[in-house]
């Protein structure tokens, strides 16, 4: 077991013939992910890495029955692609695309909820259940199957921590990059709840960045609902207030959303917060042995 993706995943790739889409579709197929179809309007009949391409999600769903979709289309088409996926009954949609206007995501977020589907992202690296399914853009080889669930708002920082975990002998059940935008489909709390309920996840790592208050909300949830050992890291302690640090979400404004506040909240909830990504595995082991 694991969460969200695994051997049962039947993946659809939206935007599969684009530069990003075709590259990552190939990578995912090579990793062993069960990629059943791709969609690019007008490219029906082509194949990418052996995967058949369709004009519409409707046809792809009818012919190949995917349960998960990953989106690599340009930002201005991404909301439409998400609507297309969930309107056609896809239960789990991962939107890799970055640069999607925030106001576009507001109705998308609520429609996805209303349909009973789940969206991860946008502007995220995707997620991976090592050894079963890679649904994203992360380098697969740094991951090892194991018992640590990882959830992160950052991309490369996640790889950094995963790499450290793997090197420390701590494999992962599932690693989820939820994305750094102000409006994302799946929050820390959503993933923490899944890990808490997943029998194959024994410990949890959470990686946050400055801006917003998702980490604080997560801390409240952890205090009340998470019993598994946890370690974490928050990036951006040295970031100056009011400036956007790459992520649209990573702005500290009005004294809220600072790394200090997030770290304090998480520590108060029993999470061991490292001052460097390299120290996460050690703190997690401490928590697991405590």
């Amino acid at each position: 077991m694991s969460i969200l993706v695994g051997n049962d995943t039947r993946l659809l790739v939206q935007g599969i013939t684009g530069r990003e889409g075709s590259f990552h579709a190939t990578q995912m197929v090579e990793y062993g992910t069960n990629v059943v179809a791709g969609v690019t309007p007008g490219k029906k009949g082509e194949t990418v890495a052996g995967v058949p391409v369709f004009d519409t999600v409707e046809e792809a769903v009818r012919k190949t029955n995917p349960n998960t979709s990953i989106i690599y289309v340009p930002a201005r088409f991404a909301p439409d692609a998400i609507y297309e996926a969930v309107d056609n009954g896809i239960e789990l949609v991962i939107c890799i695309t970055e640069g999607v206007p925030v106001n576009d995501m507001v109705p998308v977020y609520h429609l996805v909820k209303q349909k009973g589907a789940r969206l991860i992202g946008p502007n995220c690296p995707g997620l991976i259940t090592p050894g079963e399914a890679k649904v994203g853009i992360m380098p697969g080889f740094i991951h090892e199957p194991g018992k640590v669930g990882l959830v992160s708002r950052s991309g490369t920082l996640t790889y950094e921590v995963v790499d450290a975990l793997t090197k420390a002998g701590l494999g992962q059940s599932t690693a989820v990059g939820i994305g750094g935008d102000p409006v994302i489909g799946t929050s820390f709390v959503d993933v923490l709840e899944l890990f808490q309920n997943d029998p194959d996840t024994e410990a949890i790592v959470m990686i946050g960045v400055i801006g917003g208050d998702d980490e604080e909300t997560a801390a409240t949830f952890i205090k009340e609902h998470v019993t598994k050992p946890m370690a974490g890291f928050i990036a951006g302690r040295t970031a100056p207030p009011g400036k956007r640090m790459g992520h649209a979400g990573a702005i500290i404004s009005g004294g809220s959303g600072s790394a200090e506040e997030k770290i304090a909240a998480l520590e108060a909830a029993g999470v061991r917060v490292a001052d460097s990504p390299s120290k996460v595995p050690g703190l997690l082991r401490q928590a697991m042995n405590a």
Partner: protein
Amino acid sequence: MDVHEYQAAELLAKHGVPVNPGRVASTPDEAAAAASELGGTVAIKAQVHSGGRGKAGGIKLAHNPEEAKAAAEAILGMDIRGHTVNKVLVAKGADIVREFYLGVVLDRPNRKVLIMASAEGGVDIEEVARTTPEKIVRINADPALGFHSYQAKELGFALGLRADKVHGFAKIAEHLYTAFIKEDATLVEVNPLILTGAGEWLALDSKMSFDDNALYRHKDIEGLRDMAEENETELDARSSGISFVKLDGDIGCIVNGAGLAMATMDAVKLSGGEPANFLDVGGGASASQVAKAFSLVTSDPNVRAILINIFGGITRGDVVADGIREALSQVDVKVPIVVRLSGTNAEEGKKILAEAGLMAVDTMDEAAEQVVSAASGQAA
């Protein structure tokens, strides 16, 4: 993207908001002419992308054109929180009876647009939010159907407005919401929104910020960008797909990924150094991208050493190393460079760097320590 008060007011006027008449002036003489055209008492207001104008002396009243000229003379050229004042807004004096706050923002926790109002207008709303949050009324627009008229009225009644004032207030709230959505704003704010002695509503100070990701469909708003307010280096970086923020330290940072870039800055600090910048080269990290990053970092005279931190994911380590090697042949870098390379094809990358005379280390902590040492003049 931010715009000036006068630009925000013009945009809001288009959406039906009653705004205070005014003229923009770049010189004291223009300000005097504007004051004489408007007549009576005017306010001379610094136009800068910064709050705290009032406290900094950036807003003055003038009772005649001479006073307006003097006020503009005092304000033009003023530095407000690091922003130089190049323009002033000469606004007609208003007969303020009551001041309100009215704003539209994204409510992140609820993933909805939030319309906020307060009868405590004209003051710092974040201060009100901290000290007396009960004085701010908040209503979420429906995420699919928008901000309903009944909600706008609810807002007015919740402020304790008299029934005959609710309608006008509600209309303005609806217009602000429409402006927020149609213009892809991230913030629309009127503070203060006033009731005049004649019982009219008037937006006395308007503020709008816009979603950079949506500017592609708002060429007109892109055209409002005040280049004098922008950091040239940051704009230059953005045009190459690089996120760059200038900081005060002496350790230049070149990193792939925003989160990792922040973590790298934190590591530098933890090792006793001070980062000179935040820099995310983005996903590609091609030679030209890396070269651009080098030139951005080295253009800062404070930089005494550079830390390159790349976690090869999709970006392969050997490609990045090639990029660094090529970039170094194009850009003359005079300060020590510490490279940390990990992930995909890291070993191949290190080999390439070694051939180019650069040593690469394995961990971020190690790299941070070395670069801090290098910056303080010790061996890298």
